[in-house]
């Protein structure tokens, strides 16, 4: 950013990035889709943090929300269904300078890619994960997802879905080495921005569960809590998502929750009458695999060659 330096000279950065620096094309989600808001929030964070676009990589799987990288004016990787996490881990492994954003959906993360979800949390590599949870398969046209509420009629379960849905936050909070878990809603841009920004600031695997409306296939899922702010429980704490007067006015029910309190976080994650949003858990000290994976980075070529020679010595006869 611009600023005066101690010698009174004006510090004008060589490059200044605007929102347009992070935009590409016209997003082609359905009108009213919650994905637009998430995209804007991420672009704003990139702008506010002045991250050079070439240092940003948006990684996704397959699904409506996984189109996300295509609308970012940065590097992107739109890969395979369920496989965003392994790719993102590989991107980050030897590139600590890159800022990785992962866009994944409830089918992508919690169904076909559930195995990677477990381990990505455990690896705790520094990246910001947005789980776009619209409780339905959208791209393939209304099949039951692992988070579809019990009894919802879908094209695969016309009589109503039969299995109880996965509790995303309870599951995540139950995983080893979890380091940042939050929830926000797509219809409150302020809270979403603050939540994603806190996630971005956290060094580690920042997992944000975004309740995301799908006006086409699951419009009714979040209708109640969207219309009735009393249904939302806003988590505040001095170490939580930074408070915002407008957000606090909008949601009358507040709850003081210390994000270091895992027990409390798990209790809050249990499905209840009210839907908690905000920061559930943060542990800045959880070991990060990207620290391990980057070992040896920048080893000079002469040293690499010497290592090969030393290895050949071991096999010499």
């Amino acid at each position, binding site marked *: 950013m611009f600023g005066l330096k101690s010698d009174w000279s004006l510090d004008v950065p060589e490059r200044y990035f605007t929102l347009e620096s992070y935009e*590409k*094309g016209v997003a082609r989600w359905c009108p009213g889709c919650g994905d637009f808001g998430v995209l804007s929030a991420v672009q704003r964070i990139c702008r506010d943090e002045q991250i*050079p*676009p*070439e*240092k940003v*990589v*948006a*990684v996704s799987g397959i699904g409506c929300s996984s189109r996300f*990288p*295509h609308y*970012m*004016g*940065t*590097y*992107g*990787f*739109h*890969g*395979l269904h369920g*496989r965003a*996490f*392994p*790719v*993102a*881990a*590989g*991107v*980050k*492994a*030897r*590139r600590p*300078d*890159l800022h990785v954003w992962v866009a994944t959906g409830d089918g992508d993360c919690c169904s076909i890619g559930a*195995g*990677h979800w*477990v*381990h990505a949390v455990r690896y705790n590599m520094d990246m910001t994960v947005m789980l776009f949870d619209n409780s339905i398969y959208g791209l393939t046209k209304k099949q039951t997802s692992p988070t579809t509420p019990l009894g919802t009629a879908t094209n695969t379960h016309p009589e109503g879905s039969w299995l109880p849905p996965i509790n995303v936050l309870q599951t995540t909070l139950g995983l080893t080495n979890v380091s940042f878990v939050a929830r926000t809603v797509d219809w409150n841009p302020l809270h979403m921005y603050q939540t994603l920004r806190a996630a971005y600031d956290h060094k580690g695997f920042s997992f944000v569960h975004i309740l995301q409306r799908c006006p086409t296939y699951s419009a009714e899922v979040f209708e109640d809590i969207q219309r009735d702010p009393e249904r939302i429980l806003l988590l505040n704490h001095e170490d939580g998502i930074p408070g915002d007067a407008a957000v606090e006015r909008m949601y009358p029910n507040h709850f003081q929750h210390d994000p270091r309190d895992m027990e409390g976080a798990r209790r809050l994650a249990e499905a209840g009458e009210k839907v908690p949003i905000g920061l559930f858990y943060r542990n800045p000290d959880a070991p990060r695999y990207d620290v*391990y*994976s*980057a*070992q*040896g*980075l*920048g*080893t000079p*070529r002469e*040293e*690499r*060659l010497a*290592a*090969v*020679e*030393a*290895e*050949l010595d071991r*096999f*010499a*006869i």
Partner: protein
Amino acid sequence: MSTGNRVRVNERIVEIVSDSGEGAQKAGQTFGTVNAKMGNGVWTVEIIPAEIKPPARSRAGASGIRVRFGDRNITNMGDQADLVVAFNEQVLYGRIAQGAYRPGTVVLLENKWAEDSQEEIRRLYQQALADFEEFGLEVRELPIDAACKGVTGGARVGKNIFVLGMLCEIYGRELEMAEEEISVVFARKGEAVVAKNIELLRAGAVFAEEKIDQRYEIPPWSNDEELVVMNGNQAAGLGVLAAGIETVAMYPITPATSVSHYLGRGLPRAGGHLHQAEDEIAAVGYAIGASFAGKTACTVTSGPGLALKTEFLGLASMCEVPLVVILVQRGGPSTGLPTKVEQGDLLAVLHGTPGDAPKVVLAPATIEECFHFVITARKLAEEFRTPVYVLTDANLATGVQPFPRPKPEAGWLAPPLDQSPWPEGVAPYDWDAETGLSPRPVPGQRGGEYTLTGLAHTRDSKVAYDPESNTNSARMRSRKLASLQKALIPPDVHGDPEGDLLVVGWGSTLGAIDEAVDRLRADGHRVSSIHLRFLSPMEPGLDEIFARFDRVMTVEINYSDEIDGETITAANRRTGQLARLLREQTLVDVDCWSQVSGQPLPPGEIVAEIERRLPAADGAAKETAKKTANDSEAKEAKGETACSA
């Protein structure tokens, strides 16, 4: 050491067989190294049971090693063993069934079982002696265990090193060299262990001197090059280091895993990182992510892992992500034969992906090539912006052979990451219409921002479903193979450039095929061979070479219907995998002989099969000639001409 008469021979095949966990492989590897140090050509192959700990004294549970050494470059495991050291008699049954022995094979057999406390074991032992005599094995019963315990004070360890001492005495190997090796092998266990093993080694040599009448001398192979000795998985791992590959992602799978055992230790020393992923899919995803974001990465796997990785490998072809895939083939399909040899994944690699997914496929034929081909693969992956597969197999993976020490060059290493600004106006897939080649932007390059996508895309990496975009991008990916093919040279013909029969092979069968062809040629047959290293794109000039021979056949280790099998006709016969590719490529009626026995192909079996197929006109005459020739040839091949040393 005995200075008595030694029989001078050109080569010997020796096995040590035991139950699992008795150290036979360690002793055999050390024996192989000592032979290599004495200037002999060596090939060792591990005998591996499928289970970690099969029941003791089980027929199928043979664990051990074969060492073939001689006065020339030894390129394969050979035919039947000359001498076997067996820690129990039951494991020999399995080896006999596998055709590993012949009448006349000498067996140095542990005899403690004759006095075992269990009557059943005593009975089985006596039964085995009778069976072996009937088969024609020359069994020498020896109290190896008792003699060994005399040294260890009763501890039941170290029999393997004792046997190593015996072998050194029998074959006139210098004990000092074996002692040096023991010092290295046991260095981590401390001086006392080293000293005890050296004592065992010497005791074994004295034991053989007293109890065994066989003495041989194998002249060295005149080769004064500096050598290294390792197995194919270690060679591939070292190749990763020498290629400057920094990221290898894998999931444990037999028989590929030992590549990562090597890399777990070796890669960090060269500044790299081995990632053990949560599954095979994640392993290749991680490697692709790392390649996308920087330097070409590598994943290592075997058949079942390949199946799981297929979707990602299609993405790598589609999105032109450079990637090195080391595939150590085993028996398939499904879980198949995890520890055994097969060349059964060629078609899965080429055609396993939905849609058209061009890729480069290399097949090293020797352990030395396992090293060098990884370096080549990394370069090709980057130059052609594509996944490159290196297909080895369980035979190369565990086979040990000395080869000239590579001389690493800075040019082998991956270049430093290019973070310079991306040239303005250059698309992320700036395909050259003639070659299909395009430069690759890497994150961090200002102005190169693009989103890689597995969806059909334009040169700007924009999703596009229109006929023209899809046709053009598919064409560009395919063109790359055509342009690589134009840069390749035709394979060398082993033997005369024309003749009655051309044998075509690929991968680990090189040594056995060449040896078989040499024997057939010595016998007057007009047979030659070629061995393909590039399988995609296919090496050029094949149709010209094929045209100079009356018949062409492949020899492979994968399934094919036998030519004269029940219900098999020319119309329904399914051929070996390379044969199918060659038929398609050349329109020549390529025949094949292939086996799925799980074993490397012995040259003798290849000889027999080829003789069966040679022109029928002179078949009868050859048949008679063969019978007489075979007997004298067998003797000649072993070089059994006594002389005083």
